[in-house]
């Protein structure tokens, strides 16, 4: 546990769950836009994206550099930051895999939702350590709805 906190409104988390159910039994994926503060970071917008991995979408997802540049552009337009990514693990635990670790950068928040038999179950968030050796879990806190 790193002590890091990720705030997200329950409606946004609900949209991540819905995306995971919609693409089940394939992995869903998307970008997290928001603000990174001293004490916590907060997700303010989602950018659902298409899983580009067509050969093995049940246990893999991929977003191209063009997808990343699109998410960065949307963040700039909304004057927020691209703070991380979400994806689902169909019928698998909401824990990062070795494959996840090999393809990650530190700083980003990585939300993983486990979807079992079309039902969203555990949701976790992770940040890669500076030395790339492992992930630290990030506490998910529910943020209040803004007026």
């Amino acid at each position, binding site marked *: 546990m790193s002590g890091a906190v990720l705030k997200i409104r329950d409606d946004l988390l609900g949209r991540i769950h819905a995306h995971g159910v919609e693409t089940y039994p394939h992995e869903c994926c998307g970008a997290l836009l928001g603000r990174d503060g001293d004490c916590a970071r907060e997700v303010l917008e989602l950018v659902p994206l298409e899983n580009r991995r067509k050969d093995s979408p*049940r246990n893999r997802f991929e977003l191209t550099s063009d997808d990343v540049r699109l998410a960065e552009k949307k963040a700039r337009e909304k004057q927020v930051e691209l703070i991380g990514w979400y994806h689902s693990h*169909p019928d698998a635990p909401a824990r990062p895999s070795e494959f*996840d670790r090999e*393809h990650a950068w530190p700083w980003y928040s990585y939300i993983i939702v486990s979807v079992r038999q079309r039902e969203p179950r555990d949701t976790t968030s992770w940040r890669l350590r500076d030395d*790339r050796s492992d992930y630290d879990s990030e506490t998910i806190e529910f943020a209040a709805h803004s007026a």
Partner: protein
Amino acid sequence: MAVKVIIPTPLRPYAGKLESVELEAMTVGEALRALTTRFSELEKHLFADDGRLRSFVNVYVNDEDIRYLQKEATHLREGDIVSIVPSIAGGSNIA
């Protein structure tokens, strides 16, 4: 050639919190090596243990992906902007 390398937000903590770095390089490969020489902590996030650029790290010169140019041998011109953009991948352990 004096070029500017844009540092992506996740890697700024390893590059003196800078958004961009100006340096001298003739090719993209030289620019990346000059960058990691100056900021050694960046190296493990850009290059794998075999010294190759990590598979999910993409590099653009101005708006062109170097995969469609001459990759790391792509020549740079004065004032070029080099951007480092990840592709994002992952997945579960199930077979």
